[in-house]
């Protein structure tokens, strides 16, 4: 008597109907309203392809440094080893990006074109770090809200109204400013080192900041399996224009490897 109401049961009154608890595609329904997300070609779960690892930055007295290594990983393969993940936007603004390299190149070309347009107008207005930071936040948030994110975590640094500026923007549009920021593995490994140093010496000079950054890159190279011992720094100060320096390499000591057994 209750046969037809059971799942998988034969029911002559209720053929091909919705199974309890399952999604059902109504026939003759427009594809956009389909409940199967994978049917719609514009809403796709993205996977980053060539990726950059951590980007991090720290403020010092009268300036900021943003650093990123020069590796584009293809999964676990260290594929492109001379990729610059830093962008000098103008004299007062720099940014660095981790995450998908193609998305970074896309955002780079959009920003570069906007800088050209601004130069053409020559009206005395120039992009400030905060303006770029805000714009990036809006772009990332709106893209994620449409399920089509730019898979990048970006650090924006520069001089805003004579003061150092450092901001972090996520692929989901999370944004904040802080005296030190880091993305990816850097958030777990470099950020504690940066914060510790800033707690002991709240005001660093440029040389101290560079040493600190080098130490962070060293530890990241030891511990992050998708990192590379070749990095660039983007430095902006109150008195000098933004510049990208590098490539540098940290001094690393792998002697400890000999005391690990089983790999002779």
């Amino acid at each position, binding site marked *: 008597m209750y046969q037809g109401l059971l799942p998988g049961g034969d029911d002559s009154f209720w053929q091909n109907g919705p199974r309890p608890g399952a999604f059902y595609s109504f026939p003759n329904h427009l594809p956009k309203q389909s409940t199967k997300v994978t049917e719609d070609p514009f809403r796709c779960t993205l996977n980053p392809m060539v990726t950059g690892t951590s980007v991090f930055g720290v403020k010092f007295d009268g300036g900021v440094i943003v650093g990123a290594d020069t590796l584009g990983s293809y999964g676990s393969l260290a594929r492109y080893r001379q990729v610059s993940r830093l962008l000098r936007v103008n004299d007062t603004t720099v940014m660095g990006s981790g995450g998908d390299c193609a998305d970074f190149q896309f955002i780079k070309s959009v920003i570069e074109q906007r800088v*050209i347009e601004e130069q053409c107008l020559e009206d005395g207005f120039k992009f400030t770090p905060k303006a770029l930071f805000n714009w990036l936040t809006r772009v990332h948030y709106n893209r994620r809200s449409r399920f089509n994110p730019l898979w990048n975590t970006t650090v924006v640094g520069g001089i805003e109204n004579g003061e150092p500026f450092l901001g972090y923007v996520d692929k989901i549009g999370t944004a904040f400013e802080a005296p030190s920021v880091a993305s990816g593995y850097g958030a777990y490994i470099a950020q504690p080192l940066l914060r510790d140093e800033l707690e002991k010496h709240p005001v660093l000079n440029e040389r101290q900041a560079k040493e600190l950054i080098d130490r962070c890159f060293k530890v990241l190279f030891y511990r992050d399996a998708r990192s590379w011992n070749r990095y660039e720094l983007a430095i902006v100060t109150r008195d000098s224009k933004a510049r990208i320096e590098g490539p540098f390499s940290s001094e690393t000591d792998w002697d400890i490897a000999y005391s690990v057994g089983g790999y002779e």
Partner: protein
Amino acid sequence: MSSIGTGYDLSASQFSPDGRVFQVEYAQKAVENSGTVVAIRGKDGIVFGVEKLVMSKLYEKGSNKRIFHIDRHIGMAVAGLLADARQIADIAREEAANYRSDFGGPIPSAVLADRVSMYMHAYTLYSFVRPFGCSVVLSSYDEDGPHMHVIEPSGVAYGYYGCAIGKGKQAAKTEIEKIKMKEMSMHELVNEVARIVYTIHDEVKDKAFELELSWVGKGTEGLHQFIPAEVQEEAEKLAKKSLEDSDSDEDM
């Protein structure tokens, strides 16, 4: 010189019996009523000089510029209806941006001149739009050297070594032809261009004018820039002096 095209001049889609499109000719008239643009292509750069007629003393100095940057490396000087010219500048900037997006580099000015001329020509084909009432001069400098093109309201574009458009163009062309521009450097040309603009300026008909100067060439590393204030000051001083000298010659 001017003829009445009664009946055949109502739209750009009409020919006259003697094969003229009067709307395009009227557009060229608009160019001839505007302040002169003098442009000279030298050995390693191009200098623009614009006689920007100032209609009122109340205008802010430096407003309503008639020289535009198209991308970083191309300059555009205009004569004619300024509002029309601004649209051409926007289109040129868009073309340069699209080229950069497609081909990964700055647009060669010959390619840009081609695209702008096609765009301006399109507006001479239909009755529901009017032709652009402006002529534009495009300049750039790359590994092949300096390049300069002029595009008229009809949509024709020519490459030039020296050109003038606007009300004083005949007088300016006479002066330009006297100059041996192919051997001159950018800095030498600045003084020449300033002198020519001051010479052809009609003190009687048009009272005040501002001289806009810009250059692009080896000295600017291929970037189009307005001429630095000291260079401009020097050039204008020399130009005024040569005017006085020639005036005193006439008195004798």
